[in-house]
């Protein structure tokens, strides 16, 4: 299951919990990824909606691989500049498969996880469509199709 937090993720306690949970499990490499909200375009932060049933369904295929353990946390609601909205960690026996899994996982997450991001400006949420990626078979209910 994806770990879900309202607002910014408690990054360090979460990493600590995962590290302690798996440090004796024979994984030689732990590679986390921490997404930090940057101050750009005059935003105060970002805000997120998630669709949890499909998010957990999407995550299942990553959670049950034989040679890697992947943990993930994500925020919903408002996340301020300097806070983190996305955290994951990949545990593998050796580093090389860790690099590979981390990149594949994060890219799949960006393309397919049912999450919507908004800029936060003066308390208002602004959806930036240009930044978002269409899901598979997008447009299937469109008139022109």
């Amino acid at each position, binding site marked *: 299951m994806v770990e879900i937090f309202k607002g910014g993720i408690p990054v360090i306690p979460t990493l600590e919990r995962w590290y302690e949970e798996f440090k004796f499990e024979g994984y030689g490499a732990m590679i986390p990824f921490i*997404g930090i909200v940057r101050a750009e375009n005059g935003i105060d932060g970002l805000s997120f909606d998630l669709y949890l049933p499909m998010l957990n369904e999407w995550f299942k295929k990553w959670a049950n691989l034989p040679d890697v353990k992947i943990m993930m946390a994500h925020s919903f609601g408002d996340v301020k500049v300097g806070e983190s909205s996305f955290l994951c960690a990949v545990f593998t026996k050796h580093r090389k498969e860790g690099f590979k899994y981390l990149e594949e996982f994060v890219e799949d*997450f*960006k393309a397919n996880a049912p999450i*919507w991001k908004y800029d936060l400006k003066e308390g208002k949420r602004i*959806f930036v469509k240009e930044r978002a990626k*269409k*899901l*598979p078979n997008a*447009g299937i209910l469109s008139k*022109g199709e």
Partner: protein
Amino acid sequence: MVRVEFLGPIEKEPMEVDVKNLKELKELLNKNEEMSKWLKECAVAVNDKIVSSLDVELKDGDKVVILPPVCGG
């Protein structure tokens, strides 16, 4: 009745509609011009599985969600 939910930035309340398949739902939703614009960009899931074809029958209690382009992280 089939429940239709609009996710993320689509500002529309869930609907309960009487349609027998996705083709009928497509006709219905495209009547609204604003929605029609969204549908060009949106994926569609029936009971939380994304569909790749309109040849999907819908039955009472089914749930359809409309998923705009995503951007997590």
